[in-house]
């Protein structure tokens, strides 16, 4: 471990020298180097061997996967997930680790036998939250670790279980996407004549009626947004209808929530998801909505400007017949729906994702798919000039087997996870590039 720590520190230094030093730029930059440090640290076994040997099949399970890097609001710490696989037990477990943003030895902060997902810092920096199910037959809930110390405590008590969530800016509420409960599925399997209740047949009336990994899609199960008030433990449904919603984002003042939903007559027949805005404290299940995008293809990944005036998001420019091959662009549009979109990456001709405004609101940072690499770029809203923050040697890591980019580093989700239709935007979909 000493060796690996030394090696990693050296590598961290190397990494840091390749990009702007933290706190040295115009704004605080904490994400890149720390994330990379973590990435490199988590492969100590490769360095610890005395005599290097050729790779074996089992080695793939010796490689740990890191992901979901989350920077604490004060910029001092990075929390991230580490997934390990035990081949003998045939199970993979994901836990949260933490590392000083300036480097040092990472350490685990969750110790559960159950996997966790979706680590997030509360905006006030007082706690680190995550999703897990602990206890017999427990539903997934949000749990929190107090920054001052102590074991995780359960934060939410949601009957159907919690879904992917986002803290409100004042840390008093969570918005989360929850799928309707499948009341037809039996606890056990489809036992033939067994004791457990038989699962009801699938009765299908939808055009898009199946999906890999999910099975048949019946007409009745939808994913909607809910606001959970932490003090009162009250859950309020803020969207409804025969559509799915996902990718919720709080406005900086906490009064509104932007989200993605395809609300065309038959969402199964097109990929026309749009960005919508709803009042965060509505009690009529989102009867009044504001649509702020009009593109006939998919719009996604909404994020608010610090002043709440604009929403940046990903969109397309192609006509629908090329939809599957369309390059994803970055655009901004007024959050009150009063104006046209402004596409910022027209000339880039590369797909982008995961946009986030810089704290001063003058730039937007985003991921770029670039020639087999994953870069981080930023665009200046005034000049529309694009620069690369991370590229070349500092590029993100790619999973050698699946080709997926690890850790949801700021890069695109697979194209199949259409926002609004799949609710699978999963926990920690947006990386934390900047402390807020």
């Amino acid at each position, binding site marked *: 471990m000493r060796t690996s720590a030394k090696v990693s520190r050296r590598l961290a230094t190397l990494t840091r020298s390749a990009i702007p030093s933290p706190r040295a730029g115009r704004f605080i930059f904490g994400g890149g180097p720390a994330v990379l440090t973590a990435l490199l640290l988590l492969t100590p076994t490769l360095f610890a061997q005395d005599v290097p040997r050729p790779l074996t099949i089992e080695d793939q399970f010796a490689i740990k996967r890191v992901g979901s890097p989350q920077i604490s609001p004060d910029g001092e710490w990075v929390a991230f997930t580490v997934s390990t696989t035990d081949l003998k037990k045939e199970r993979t477990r994901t836990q949260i680790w933490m590392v000083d943003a300036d480097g040092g030895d990472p350490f685990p902060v969750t110790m559960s036998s159950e996997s966790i997902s979706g680590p997030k810092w509360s905006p006030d920096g007082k706690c680190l939250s995550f999703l897990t199910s602990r206890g017999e037959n427990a539903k997934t809930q949000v749990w929190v670790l107090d920054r001052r110390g102590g074991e995780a405590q359960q934060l939410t008590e949601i009957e159907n279980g919690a879904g992917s969530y986002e803290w409100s800016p004042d840390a008093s509420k969570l918005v989360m996407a929850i799928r309707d409960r499948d009341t037809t599925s039996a606890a056990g399997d*489809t036992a033939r004549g067994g004791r457990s209740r038989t699962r009801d047949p*699938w009765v*299908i009336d939808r055009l898009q009626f199946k999906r890999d990994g999910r099975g048949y899609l019946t007409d009745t199960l939808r994913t909607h947004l809910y606001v959970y008030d932490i003090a009162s433990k009250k859950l309020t449904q803020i969207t409804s209808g025969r559509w799915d919603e996902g990718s919720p984002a709080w406005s900086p003042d906490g009064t509104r929530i932007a989200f993605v939903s395809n609300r065309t007559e038959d969402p199964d027949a097109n990929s026309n998801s749009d960005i919508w805005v709803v009042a965060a404290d509505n009690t009529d299940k989102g009867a009044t909505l504001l649509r702020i995008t009009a593109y006939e293809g998919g719009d996604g990944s909404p994020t608010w400007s610090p002043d709440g005036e604009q929403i940046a998001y990903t969109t397309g420019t192609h006509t629908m017949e090329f939809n599957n091959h369309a390059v994803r662009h970055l655009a901004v549009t007024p959050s009150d729906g009063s104006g046209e979109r402004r596409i910022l990456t027209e000339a880039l001709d590369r797909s982008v994702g995961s946009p986030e405004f810089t704290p001063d609101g003058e730039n937007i940072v985003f991921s770029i798919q670039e020639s087999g690499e994953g870069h981080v770029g930023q665009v200046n809203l005034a000049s529309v000039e694009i620069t690369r923050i991370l590229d070349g040697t500092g590029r993100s890591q790619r999973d050698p087997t699946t080709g997926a980019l690890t850790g949801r580093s700021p890069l695109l989700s697979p194209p199949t996870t259409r926002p609004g239709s799949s609710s699978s935007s999963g926990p920690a979909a947006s990386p934390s590039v900047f402390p807020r």
Partner: protein
Amino acid sequence: MYTFRPRRLREATSSVQALLLPSVLLFLILAPPLTGQGQDGPTTSPRPLEVNDMFQIKRVGSPVVSPDGEWVAYTVSTPSSPSKRGGTQIWMVSTSGEGDPIPMTAEGYSASNPKWSPDGKYLSFMATRGDSAKAQVWALDRRMGEGQELTKQKWGINGFEWSPDGSKILLTIRDPDPIDTLPAHKKPKSTPPWEIDRLQFKRDRVGYITGNRHTHLYVFDVATKNTTQITSGDYDAGSPAWSPDGTRVAFVANRTENADGNANSDIWVVSADNTDKGASLIQVTNNQGSDSSPAWSPDGEWIAHVTSREPEIIWYDVSELAVAKADGSGDLRILTEELDRNVSSPKYSEDGRHIFVRLEDSAENHLGRVRVRDGRIDRPISGKLSMGGFDLGPNNQVYASVARTDLPGEIFAADDGELAQLTKVNEAFLKRVRLGRVFDATFPSADGTEVEGILYLPPGHQEGMKYPTILRIHGGPVSQYSHSFNFEAHLFAANGYVVVTTNPRGSSGYGQEFSRALWADWGGPDFQDVMAGVDYAIEQGWADPDKLGVGGWSYGGILTDHVITKTDRFKAAITGASEFLYVSNYGHDHYQLQWEKELGLPWENREAWERISPFNDVDKINTPTLVMGGEKDWNVPINNGEQLYQALKRMGKETQLVVYPGQGHGLAVPAYQVDRLERYLAWYDKYVKDLREPVAEEGR
């Protein structure tokens, strides 16, 4: 040549029957299992049939006569209902018909395959009971007492036969799954991947077929309890039969180089006391098609069997009765050359002069008696009925399960053409319900071919009133609607529908040419034939031509798909487990061998595959269509139903898809059987009776 008997309209005093053809050759027509338990309440006025009545009807089978001819043992199966698990019990009844039937096995487990020991001292059966949890042979001492386990085979048995002197039992045992042979700590946690090298690599309800597991024959010595393996090798041995002197065993095996690529099973003979696992075999038949069901002549010289001589026409071939010299000299005679009807289950008469067979004929199933000398056939059991299993007692007394359209199968004694009913397992239930009238009819198809149908009228049907009418189509395509108890048809009738069931081209029971007319032309002549049945019901003044529905399962679904691409006469269709785009099934369903014979290889003869695919005319469908199937059906996989649904939905047509979790080609879960019938009624009520929601209660 047995000629087709022209038929006028006549009221059937009896009913229909269940198909017992080898399931591999057929798309299974899984009629809901028939059962019945239930207390016999006080007699009230009969009511119409209800969906849940399907669990009231018990099924009898496997009649076996005791060596002294005094008793017939038989099975009674009670279907599992959503609230109660069913099972099969063995009963026996006096052949004289005196006294009540006696339950021989207890409730709480299933017993099957009843067989008397040759000395009559034991009634044995197969059951899975107690800790061993594998099927074994059990025996009831006829003097008194409960069943005792006779065999303790580690991997259980698939079947058994007593040797003629009762000292040995022939066991059929399948090689264990290699994983089951591993000690507990070495068993993998997860199911290992299926590693597949075979041509025929999957089978509905079986799953992927991997490795080299086979079924072989073993001789169990009752006294010493020793078990000796008497066949071995890279093939399956089945249907074993002891020679009368107990020295030899005949069995069926396909021992060709690539058994997955043909249906060429033959009859073989092996010595019963061999100790080299059957290294020396005598080949009794060498026909290119399938030879099966061996039965020894009393003198041990001949082996009667069922033969299919034209394997190139697969399931359209009529199976014949043959006798072959048991010594392998090749002497062989076909006894039913002129009959042109399927025969099965041959049994020699005591004197060896006749062979009794089950005989499938024109919506009926008879007992045929074939004179060995000249092939002359008479029929001890015939008429508008359907005979299932049968057994021969001393003096060729016949005991058989027989069903009619108004009577689920019961055990009957046949004596000089007279049938005497010995059991009444469903009598109490039948007294409580009112069934409609059933008619047998023939009518000309578009090209003049005579087609037979069985039509059901609603109970209380009034002359001169036209009723909503449903055309139901049987599976197969090579099978037949017969005079047995068709619960589904009676249920529709009870709900105010006229029900038209027909035996269109492709059906068995009408000779080889009638069946073969469907060759590579599915949805062709049979479409004309089923429509002729509908027109007949309209001409009779029974059917309202503006209120027609159509439907079926398996081939019944396939032909339904053709029907709705060819006509808009139907207001509703229900298609279950139907092939729709054949090429998408190649390598996905379990019919690789049959498709290749009938259609050729899809990459060489694509046109034949496309020609019979209703998918290519899907845009012509305007009929509101309910699409159904089992999630894990590898016989007619659900992907076909999904494609039909997807296309109809995409075009904005009225449709719905219902998929039953975990189910294969038949629905095993009682709650699903109820659900299916309720959806049938709701869909037809909505679109045929035009009862848009709420669905009204009419005529129930």
